[in-house]
């Protein structure tokens, strides 16, 4: 789950991400440095276009920076090829998306197992760990349901279980409450807080200051730079 405290869960050093080439490139990130230690609960906020999505993609190992250094769980992501990125996403990152992004044709159990399939974990072990993760999000009785048979809040809890199942260095939640009503949204935030209390590293990307306020530390981006980085 967490490595020793002097290895940051995530570290960015003077990271730039420039989209487009030619005379008019756009710098989505323009020299961002940031360090997130194991066990932290950090919210990244900013308006649309501030660069928070780009930051999330880099931290989530979905993309590599144009320049600068990104490390996740001590591993340098900046120059990794697609296979290594895939392995990092698989082992070190747990994603929770706004749109849940569950596979509609798999039941809850198989959805939670999905990262373990790509980690090469044998089926019996997968079942055991999926059941464990489901228990952590209180969904033990829904394992054989399909996503379409669940409420939005339940779906997001399945997604959290899926993010947990491979014991990643950090859980990356991208607007996890965006598609939920306030009660279910609060429910998911409570769940994240519980996981944080249990020692998980959580990075929460949101545009909503009220949601961001649930984190212990808020990093605010604007025009591709860190404008504010403070504990709440």
């Amino acid at each position, binding site marked *: 789950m967490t490595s020793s405290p002097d290895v940051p869960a995530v570290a960015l050093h003077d990271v730039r991400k420039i989209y487009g080439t030619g005379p008019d490139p756009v710098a989505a990130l323009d020299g961002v440095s940031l360090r997130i230690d194991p066990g932290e609960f950090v919210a990244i906020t900013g308006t649309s276009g501030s660069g928070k999505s780009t930051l999330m*993609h880099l931290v*989530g190992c*979905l*993309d590599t920076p144009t320049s600068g250094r990104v490390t996740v769980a001590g591993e340098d992501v900046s120059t990794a090829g*697609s*296979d290594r990125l*895939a*392995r990092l*996403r*698989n*082992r070190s990152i747990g*994603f929770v*998306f706004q749109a849940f*992004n*569950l*596979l509609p*044709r798999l039941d809850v159990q198989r959805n939670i197992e*999905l*990262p373990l*399939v*790509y*980690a*090469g974990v044998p089926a019996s072990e997968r079942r055991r760990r999926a059941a464990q993760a489901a228990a952590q999000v209180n969904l033990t009785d829904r394992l054989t349901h399909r996503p379409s048979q669940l409420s939005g809040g339940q779906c997001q809890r399945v997604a959290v279980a*899926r993010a947990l199942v*491979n014991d990643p260095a950090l859980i990356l939640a991208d607007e996890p409450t965006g598609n939920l009503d306030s009660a279910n949204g609060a429910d998911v935030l409570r769940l994240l807080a519980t996981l944080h209390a249990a020692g998980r590293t959580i990075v929460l990307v949101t545009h909503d200051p009220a949601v961001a306020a649930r984190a212990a530390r808020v990093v605010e981006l604007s025009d591709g730079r860190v404008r504010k980085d403070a504990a709440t």
Partner: protein
Amino acid sequence: MNWLSGMLIGLQEIREHKFRSFLTMLGVILGVASLLAMFALTAGIAASWRNTMEQLGGLERIGINDKQVSLEFADLAALSPGRTLADAEALRAIPHLVSHVAPEMQAGATLSATDGATVSARITGTWPDNFTVSQHAMAAGRFLTDLDLQRGARVVVLGDAKVAELWPDEYGTDADFLGRTITINGRPFAVAGVLTRYEREQDRLRREAEARGDKAPARFAMGGRGPGGGRRDMFSWKNESVIVPLSTLYHEFRSGQADTPPMAMAKLDYLNFRVRDLTRFDETLGEVEKLLRGTRRGVDDYDFDTREDWFERMETSLRSTQLSGALIAGISLLVGGIGIANIMLASISQRVRELGVRLAVGARRRDVFLQILAESTAIGIIGGLLGLGAGVLLLDLLGRLAPLESPPVIEPSAVLISVGFASAVGVLSGLYPAWRASRLDPIAALRYE
């Protein structure tokens, strides 16, 4: 993630979209069905030809024919006694190469049964070996024996068609024809044996089905078939046999005529022999040739009649039939493959989001590639298996609609080849869609609506 789990995902995908998958498979199904049908039909033709060949003596049977002596040796031609029993006796000297020798003399005669009809026939005088050389089989009684030959016994072996002509009222009943007396040109002969009815396998099956009272499937009229008669086919010469010992034929019907040579010098109408070992075919022909050079006194007035050419022609025509069938099936499979590729591409663009999620949780590009490839392969294999079923139905339908001269034969190799091709089509048609899917950008895929 391995091939198997990729396959399982693919199978689930197929199960979720049964109808769409079926339409996707249709090209492959039809391709495999036509491939299988083509194989089965040509194999059926080959099998029935082979069966016919065997009944006519097979590759082992070789005839010795007369040949016009070339002009430069024309003045020597009279030196050769021609095809005589001397040849036959000479062939007996190499039993390690020539297993059976059957000289034949023929004569036209009138047959009459005291309790039946009078018919005319060609009677054949021959040796007991004729039984094997001509691949005879007994329905009742026995064939000629060496003793018959030595004694010039007045015994006769009758073909099925001749029995039908001689005793039309009793033919087809349980009546026993053995031991009855018929006259041949006025001389009494005892019926020692009756030959089996020679016919093609499918004719036999059909006749037996009719005899059991089953309603035979509707077929186009094939000409009337009286009892024991039937259309003239390649077996009629066997069915119309009237066989007596060679010595009997010579003494009873040949000698006494003016200028009759002694039996050993009398001309034979046919001389056939059987090669003992087909792997020593050429060696055997060489040895026989040496012997004949002796008996014919060096005159080159003989020729071998082998079935090799016949077989070669058969193989060639089969191969060209197979080729054109394979071409049609191949085009159909190609179209099927294009269909799979097309649907896979469409299905990928429907599943961009799913693939994005898989990439996000750690699927490598090759995992996605494998998943799509496994799915198209599964479609190919299932299509192939369904195609086998369709092929069997197609053959059945063909058999009902049109008379098949030779019943189709489904060989295991044809099944393997058909399904193998279908699988290959599945793999090949999945390559491009799988490559496309594996190039997806996870970020764009996750955003995809």
